[in-house]
């Protein structure tokens, strides 16, 4: 047990799993010699050799497409896409093949592979490096999508993803990579895909969110607790697909109020699915309309606007105030 930030937790987990399962291979751009642009795969090339830690040419469709072949051929590939905004060339492989091979082969073949990608704003990078693109992924049947909000969850989700017989996209919030450290157990443990986490229980209102928004939601909750004594429940969705409808529904049936927070644009964002699901689950318990706090319906702007784009504590607090005001 030791204190780790998210990059360290991911790195050590990959290393552990590589030792544990010889079928595991890593592939991606600059993950070998360079250790990945965020150093998640630092030194793994030295440790495991270039057959298992593969610096690929620059082609995302090929990374995902060859990984599918590898998986069918008996390896367990973990792909790194350098930034989520560069996954788009691989969407065809994900939609047409990775997510369908099991159904297409009547269960005989599976795409036991993982795709890791950093995402979200926060490092003043050039355009397209900050996209929150989970909305394209959560609508693909056959795929799973998970997003950790802490080092410990990052480890547990990564292990669950690697061990899953179906394809999992693990989205890693760039802003959380080195934001803080926490105790991360050394054992191999799993955060089961399909389970949300109650970050803090509360009676008055549910804030349903994930990734880099979780710490912001906590800050807003603390502020409102102090200011008005409101008891805010925070639900970290963690597994967007499959979605833990039960935990979400329970939370809102208890509180009767909900705010949904994500960084991706509003329209067609995953917040719409959360809102729909929660409404289906808890319609008769709702005391106020659910409010979505999201990025605006604009492409992620050049970084000078970054602070405007990304939801912040004040916007979240304001939305909670809105749903608390009703009735």
């Amino acid at each position: 047990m030791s204190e780790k930030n998210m990059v360290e937790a991911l790195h050590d987990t990959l290393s552990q799993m590589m030792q544990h399962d010889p079928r595991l291979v890593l592939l991606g751009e600059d993950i070998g010699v360079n250790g990945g642009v965020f150093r998640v795969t630092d030194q793994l090339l030295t440790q495991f050799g270039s057959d298992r830690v593969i610096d690929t040419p620059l082609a995302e469709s090929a990374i995902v497409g060859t990984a599918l072949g590898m998986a069918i051929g008996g390896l367990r590939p973990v792909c790194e896409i350098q930034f989520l905004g560069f996954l788009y060339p691989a969407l065809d492989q994900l939609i047409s093949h990775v997510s369908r091979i099991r159904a297409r082969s009547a269960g005989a073949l599976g795409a036991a592979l993982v795709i890791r990608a950093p995402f979200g704003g926060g490092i003043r990078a050039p355009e397209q490096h900050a996209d929150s693109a989970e909305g394209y992924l959560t609508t693909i049947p056959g795929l799973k999508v998970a997003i950790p909000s802490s080092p410990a969850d990052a480890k547990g989700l990564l292990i669950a993803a690697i061990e899953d017989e179906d394809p999992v996209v693990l989205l890693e919030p760039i802003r959380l990579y080195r934001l803080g450290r926490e105790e991360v157990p050394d054992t191999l443990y799993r955060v089961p895909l399909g389970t949300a986490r109650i970050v803090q229980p509360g009676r008055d209102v549910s804030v349903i969110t994930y990734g880099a928004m979780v710490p912001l939601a906590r800050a807003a909750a603390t502020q409102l607790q102090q200011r008005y004594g409101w008891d805010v429940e925070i639900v970290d969705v963690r597994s967007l697909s499959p979605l833990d409808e039960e935990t979400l529904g329970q939370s809102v049936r208890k509180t009767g109020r909900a705010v949904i927070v994500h960084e991706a644009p509003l329209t067609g964002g995953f917040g719409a699915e959360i809102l729909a699901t929660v409404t289906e689950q808890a319609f008769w318990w709702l005391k106020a309309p659910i409010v979505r706090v999201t990025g605006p319906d604009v492409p992620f702007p050049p970084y000078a606007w970054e602070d405007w784009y990304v939801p912040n504590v004040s916007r979240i607090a304001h939305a909670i105030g809105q749903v608390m005001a009703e009735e």
Partner: protein
Amino acid sequence: MNQYPVVRVMDVEGTLAFSSSLETALHIYQDMILLRAFDEKTLTLQRQGRVGTFAPSLGQEAAEIASAYALDRQDWMVPSYRDHGALYVHGLPLDHVILFAMGRSGSYAAGVRALPSSIPIATHLLHAVGLAYALKQQAEPAIAMAYFGDGATSEGDFHEALNFAGVWQVPVLFFCQNNGWAISTPVHRQTHSETLAQKAEAYGIAGVRVDGNDALAVYEVVRQAREKAIQGHGPTLIEAVTYRAGPHTTADDPTRYRTSNEVNIHTAQDPIRRLGEFLIQQGLLTKTLKEQMMRDSKERINEAVGRVEAQGAVMVGDMFRHVYQTLPTRIQRQWHEWEDRSHE
């Protein structure tokens, strides 16, 4: 491009240019007969509304069948929608081919090292490269071979696949059937390169052009490229020059975009007739044997169709069952809903 001469084993009159296994040749011939009979049957079934949209291999039997004969069962076949002939040779039961044509399955059978046919053009070439990587990594003495058409060479995934294969030097073959057309688009509108084989230059890999209507040449070329790949000498792009004698699919009307004159010229080089002539010259085939083969083929196909049609309606649950290995509750719930409705 004299760098890419067309490899031929028989001339168009079926005279042998270099040696190959004659017994294999007869087997190949037999399966070419079967494939033709299968396509003819399926076209009829389609007109009767008993199968949906379907892509026959008419005119491409040599390329389809002989290429598959050059593989071992341990090799991975990575086909596209037109390759039921190759799949059959590689072990896919006839019944499964028919199930696919009837929209009841993904042309896959457990135990056969072949992926389900890929519909989106060129996407599957990457899977072949990944499979080849896995074979190499696990030191299996086998290769992966992807099947695709001339049109597929225009897609980005074609490029990425050949490039990765070159860099990785994995045992993969890219078997391109240049049948002259991608639906209505002739090859010279598909690319400005003189041959498709020369595209190999871009990846520093081997490129070969073979007469795709010369079954024995196809067999030899694939066999040699396979040997080379197994030996660790890298991937090969094979361009098999052939001709699609029939429609692209049953939904296609080729008279809209090509003349009957063009078709006639090419059907005169029919690969079945050509191999037949050769086998007769070699004393391996007789008219009686040929007619016997045709009868047998039809019989086997009719039996298979009968078996498949006897299976009755599909079950709604099979639409849900295999989306994930362990179904999430939401899909389970949907499955139940749909089952309930199916009993209404």
